[in-house]
């Protein structure tokens, strides 16, 4: 139990260190790509090159990924609780957001599926 907990804590620590490296890199280079994305790419590179074995991050990352939604809740609360828009502006903005989001999702999905070929993808589904 204690051993499990230590292992998990170490995995979180490793992810946190990678995030800090990413942030540091983003700040020193002045890149428009933020630290978390650089951290993601860094971890992916380290896994592919086998510098870090997957077992070092698997459980900690699994827990984060499973509960990823949780980490958005407080920001959503902070952002959405400050409603100070005129109803008209709020309405037109909602329409724009709905239209562009839904169109974007439909277009992305359709194009991906038509290029990748539907049959091939169906095969993947049964094999994964």
């Amino acid at each position, binding site marked *: 139990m204690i051993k499990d907990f230590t292992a998990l804590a170490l995995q979180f620590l490793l*992810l*946190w260190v*990678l*995030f800090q490296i990413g942030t540091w890199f983003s700040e020193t280079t002045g890149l*428009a*790509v*933020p*630290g*978390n*994305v650089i*951290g*993601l*790419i860094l*971890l*992916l590179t380290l896994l592919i090159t086998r510098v870090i074995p997957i077992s070092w991050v698997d459980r900690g*990352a*699994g827990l*984060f*990924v499973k*509960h*990823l*939604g*949780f*980490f*958005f*809740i*407080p*920001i*959503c*609360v*902070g*952002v959405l*609780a400050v409603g100070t828009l005129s109803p008209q502006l709020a309405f*037109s*903005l*909602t*329409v*724009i*957001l709905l239209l*562009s*989001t*839904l*169109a*974007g*999702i*439909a*277009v*992305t*999905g*359709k*194009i*991906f*599926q038509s*290029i*990748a070929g*539907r049959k091939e*993808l169906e095969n*993947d*589904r049964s094999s*994964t």
Partner: protein
Amino acid sequence: MTVLLLSITIAVYLASRRLYKNVRVAVLTPVFTSTAAMIVILLVFGISLDTYEPVIDLVTAVLGPATVALAVPVYKHRKIILRYSRAFLWSLTIGSLTAALISLSAANLIYLSSQLITSLTVKSATVPIALELAELQGGDLTMTAVFVMITGLIGAVFGPGLLTIAGVNSPAARGMAVGTIAHGIGTAHIINEGELQGASAAAAMACAGIFLSLITTVL
């Protein structure tokens, strides 16, 4: 107080997660129901946003490492993602441009301020990317955050249903679409559908963020 509010947030999240697992109605996606419930709780008990602020800072600090963790599902499904790299790049490019251009032209049509227009074009990126871009381009930061959150929630709530209606059934394509447009909130939702959806969404989210940083300098 911070510990209490954090515990309440976690409890609300776990309850809404259980509710979603039992009911499986897209509108009840945990991020959406938890946010609504927390806003109601804060209002009912007269807790100001300033009091809740430490919880926001604390949890947002962990959002960084949690995003880094998305490298793991991408790694596990790297073969499939690589095999479809051509479909991946094209759908990402055209999909992101569609979302950005629709909001751009609609915003111009109703004469929004240029600050709001900038905030609208970066809304499909994940929060830290969008805020960074808005700042670089002189957009309104608060409204950018609002647009990003609403875009994520719309994508999570309506995206999967829309894709089903549009006949997009393959897991990789579904994850790709939601991750590209609805960033982390969409990814957190679609990962419940399956691990491949989640992996493709995570890869799409990271690449869409990078792509948007490149095109906003042009648009």
